[in-house]
């Protein structure tokens, strides 16, 4: 009897899970569907009031227009380079700093950690102009490096990975010492691999942030061939009028690399544990 009721409540729970996930998915996917639908409308229809949901006649020409109005090949390459560089910097430097803040004792640790936290409190708007001036003073605007510049280090990444290292028992590190590892080896060989899933999450997080940033690339680079996808698309906005269908078609092209990246890394989530083995 009891066995049965537990099973019954399991089934209810499972159904609730699916209901929640499916309802949530509907809300989450809606703007994406809207992008697709808008990309198939004529400009007149896209601004119609009240709006239509489905395009009266699908306009596939918007996709062709988007492709001809921006140098997509360059934008893809620039975006990938920028994202890659920012992700590598975030992971390497944040892992080191995060590990140190979590597991090592050194002078001024609290003060330095406060610096990390206070950085997270600062609104990014105050960085744009000073950072531009720094790059301009060494004639480094108009380059791929300029795109990467603000993301060379990551305070959030440091804090996030510090938390991940705090979650790893000290005994694991101590065991590595006993095996004859030095501090650096204990970090790279033993501790770092244990944070695999956190690093994957940070990768996605950093990548999406870098990808979505449109202000900085527009300010630091003017040549359209040195833009990223998001900022390149922003130039399609007119001062008064914007051709939304073409913008949406272009945005759909722009989403492709991020979706691929996500699908690769969410797999990493599942396999993360298998790789780290330890637990």
């Amino acid at each position, binding site marked *: 009897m009891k066995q049965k009721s537990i099973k019954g409540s399991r089934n209810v*729970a499972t159904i609730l*899970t699916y209901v*929640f*996930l499916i309802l*949530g*998915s509907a809300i*989450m*996917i*809606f*703007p994406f569907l*809207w*992008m697709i639908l808008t990309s198939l409308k004529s400009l007149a229809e896209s601004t119609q009031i009240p*709006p239509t949901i489905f395009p009266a006649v699908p306009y596939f020409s918007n996709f062709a227009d988007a492709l001809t109005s921006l140098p997509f090949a360059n934008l893809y390459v620039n975006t990938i380079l920028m994202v890659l560089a920012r992700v590598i910097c975030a992971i390497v430097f944040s892992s*080191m*700093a995060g*590990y*140190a803040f979590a597991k*090592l004792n050194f002078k001024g640790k609290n003060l*330095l950690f406060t*610096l990390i936290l*206070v*950085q*997270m*409190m*600062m*609104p990014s*708007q*105050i*960085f744009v102009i000073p*950072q531009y001036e720094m790059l301009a003073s060494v004639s480094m605007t108009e380059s791929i490096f300029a795109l990467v*510049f603000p993301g*060379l*280090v*990551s*305070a959030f990444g*440091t*804090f996030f990975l510090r938390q*991940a290292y705090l*979650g790893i028992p000290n005994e694991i590190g101590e065991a590595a010492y006993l095996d004859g590892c030095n501090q650096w080896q204990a970090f790279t060989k033993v501790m770092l691999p244990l944070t695999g*899933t*956190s690093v994957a*999450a940070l990768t*996605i*997080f950093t990548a*999406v942030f870098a990808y*979505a940033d449109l202000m900085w690339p527009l300010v630091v680079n003017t040549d359209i061939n040195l833009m990223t996808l998001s900022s390149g*698309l922003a130039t399609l906005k007119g001062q008064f009028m914007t051709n*939304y269908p073409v*913008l*949406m078609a272009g*945005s759909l092209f722009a*989403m492709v690399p*991020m*979706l691929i990246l996500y*699908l690769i890394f*969410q797999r990493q*989530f599942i396999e*993360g*544990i298998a790789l780290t083995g330890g*637990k």
Partner: protein
Amino acid sequence: MVAPTIIGLLVLNYYPLIQTIILSFSKTKTFGAMEFNGLNNYIDMFQSPEFWKATWNTILFCILTVPVGIILALLVAILLNAKVKFKGGFRAIYFLPMVCAPAAIAMVWRWMFNGEYGIINAILGVKINWLTNPQTAIIACAIVAIWSSIGYDAVLLLSGLQGISKSYYEAARIDGAGRIKQFFSITLPMISPTLFVTLIMRMMASLKVYDLIYMMVDQSNPVLPDVQSLMYLFYREAFVAGNKGYASAIVVWTILLIGIVTVVQFIGQKKWVNYDV
């Protein structure tokens, strides 16, 4: 090992911060020309009803978005970590808002909230001018904020959940603990370090909100004063009006405000964040 990060932050972020602090004590003329004027910007700021309104709006926005957003993100993360079919598909879908074009997000939500033909009124069977009513505009903005943050937060929390070994749950099951008990005795303590960083990050982000309000509420919308956040006020003062000094004072105030809330969080964490595994 912390050197690269710290050096990077000092150059990239602390140098601009110091400039901002100096500016906040100055009367700025255009393009860098400025003269020291003591606390005047702060005095002006504290005397401005607009400023206090923006401070309150910002705090309200934080209260409306952070708890609900974090709870929903945790729920999503747990469900996406459970044994469900099409897990990959679901995960991809919940990720979509992060990479959608901002213009699409603005269009969709403004359409959904529209008082005349919006889908939300149609479903609820009411007639509320969500985006043009002073009482509801900030709620509408909060809903969009929660919607766009769930994906980010769930990704972070999911990584924390993945770190929990299955053996804990197996042991609990043998002890006869139900799912709810498992959640409170295993999941929550084990994920608390990740939950804490997510909470801090989300809270800071919500107190710095700007883009989202700019996107949802036009300059021609009479409710603007009722949703204007501190950073929105900063944007208007710094980039539209060119009052860098006054705008810098707003930034300093915002950082202090976030700092206070963060300190409270760090004190509070001792009660619930579990580091000794």
